[in-house]
């Protein structure tokens, strides 16, 4: 049982990384990325490919970050000519294309079986891995908070709110979007890397679009444009989601109910908060940037 709690905590911390990443895009910059899971996938497959080619984890991290940056640039390029809704569809399709490729290019990715046998980082057991994930989460939190409390953060929020005004002041909107995508790719890719080495396996089933929507729910419920909110949302949803199987056993329900409960948690949570508390549990703090 204690191991299970540790496991849930590790996954919560890793999801926190994804939520912080999406929150920078969606919450601060207004970039509705429906392909967030692909950024994670780039990091995970970077780790797995490097491993399958016989390199160590450090090379895997570098490869993952390189792939993630490339993907972030593709996303940003698509955003240059598209409105928010069209860009959402574009990112969703790219994520699905990448999942299809990962499923079918067996020679490269191991196909549907994926790539297994990755080592635990530093040979860590559960507490060690938790410490690692928590450290990554804390570091990301601090860096991203520094970014959003800076003038760059102000420019990004101006881009979200009034792009014309931002342009009239000389901000390069495409450049801002590109930088936001690049910097938010890092924690997502890092998450993929850590996850790959934690579960020692990478496969296309980790890249379903439903995972993206789960992260969306974390950010919307926790609070858009609030880093603590994103982490809170990730932790809360992970705990709820992890307790579903227990509820199922306690109530004697079939496994359909587990799947349905996950969907209800994500969909219902999103809808409730969007309608009744769009600012989330921890709202954005307006006026907090002083210098």
């Amino acid at each position: 049982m204690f191991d299970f709690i540790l496991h849930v905590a590790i996954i919560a911390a890793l999801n926190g990384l994804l939520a912080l990443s999406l929150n920078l895009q969606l919450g601060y910059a207004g970039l509705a990325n429906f392909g967030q899971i692909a950024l994670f996938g780039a990091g995970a497959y970077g780790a797995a490919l490097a491993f399958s080619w016989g390199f160590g984890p450090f090379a895997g991290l570098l490869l993952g970050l390189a792939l993630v940056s490339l993907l972030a640039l593709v996303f940003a390029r698509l955003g240059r000519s598209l409105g928010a809704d069209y860009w959402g569809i574009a990112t969703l399709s790219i994520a699905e294309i990448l999942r299809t490729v990962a499923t079918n290019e067996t020679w490269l990715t191991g196909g549907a079986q994926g790539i297994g046998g990755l080592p635990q980082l530093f040979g860590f057991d559960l507490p060690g891995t938790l410490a690692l994930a928590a450290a990554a989460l804390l570091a990301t939190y601090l860096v991203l908070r520094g970014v959003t409390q800076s003038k760059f953060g102000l420019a990004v929020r101006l881009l979200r709110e009034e792009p014309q005004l931002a342009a009239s002041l000389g901000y390069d909107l495409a450049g801002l979007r590109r930088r936001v995508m690049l910097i938010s790719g890092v924690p997502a890719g890092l998450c993929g890397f850590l996850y790959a080495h934690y579960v020692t396996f990478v496969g296309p089933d980790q890249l379903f679009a439903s995972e993206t929507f789960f992260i969306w729910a974390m950010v919307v419920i926790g609070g858009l444009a609030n880093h603590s909110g994103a982490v809170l949302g990730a932790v809360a949803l992970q705990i709820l989601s992890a307790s579903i199987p227990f509820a199922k056993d306690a109530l004697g329900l079939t496994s359909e109910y587990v799947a349905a409960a996950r969907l209800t948690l994500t969909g219902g949570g999103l809808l409730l908060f969007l309608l009744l508390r769009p600012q989330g549990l921890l709202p954005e703090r307006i006026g907090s940037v002083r210098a």
Partner: protein
Amino acid sequence: MPEPVLSIRGLRKAFGAHVVLGGIDLDIAVGSIVGLLGPNGSGKSTLLDTVTGFVPKDAGRIELDGRAIESLDPGAISRRGLVRTFQLPRMPARMSVREVMLAAERSGSGLADALLGRRAPSALAVDGLLERLLLTPVAEQPASAISGGQKKLLSIAMALANRPRLLCLDEPTAGVHPNLRQEIMALLRDANAQGVTLVVVEHDMAFIRGLCPRCVVLDRGELIADCAPDDLADHPRVVEAYLGRAGARAARKAA
């Protein structure tokens, strides 16, 4: 005439069949203040929109310091030093007045600055400008929540904080309390004294007389006058444009 900072040749713009700018030629001298007048719908805002790249033009050449800017996007034009304000400024709902003022000056706003923790020393100047325009009491309010006149003031303050070389203001005093108009005029004079060239779209003739040694008049997409504000009454077409044909005849009779 000194070197023009802005030079417009044959600028045309039509919305569908409706020709809004019918081939405008205009030079703006370095360090000058030029009033841009004209009845409602004469194309003043469209002129600013096309020059600053916010609305694509149909034809014409636009040069800033002798270099063509017509292929640039609005952000790039602004970075070259040509900044404009909007007739109806829209302000962010989820940023405070002070935050948008801070964002108005771009120095130190790079991602590298953020990651390295470099701060720009602009906070003091921002607070001074807010104070001068009586915006200090609303500095912590969401910028979208202040009154229309205050938004106008804020947008002027932001444009000035951006430190442009050529600033185009679209009706800077519309909706602003008369007392504050003097303050705006003083601000603009100070900026001009420090070398900022100004183009001011304005309906308030007192403001124009007080600020602009030269003014140009736009009517139905044509420039119909280019003179000192006090000589405007001598231009029959200007009188006609403002009073209509019948009004112009009446005015002539009265004179």
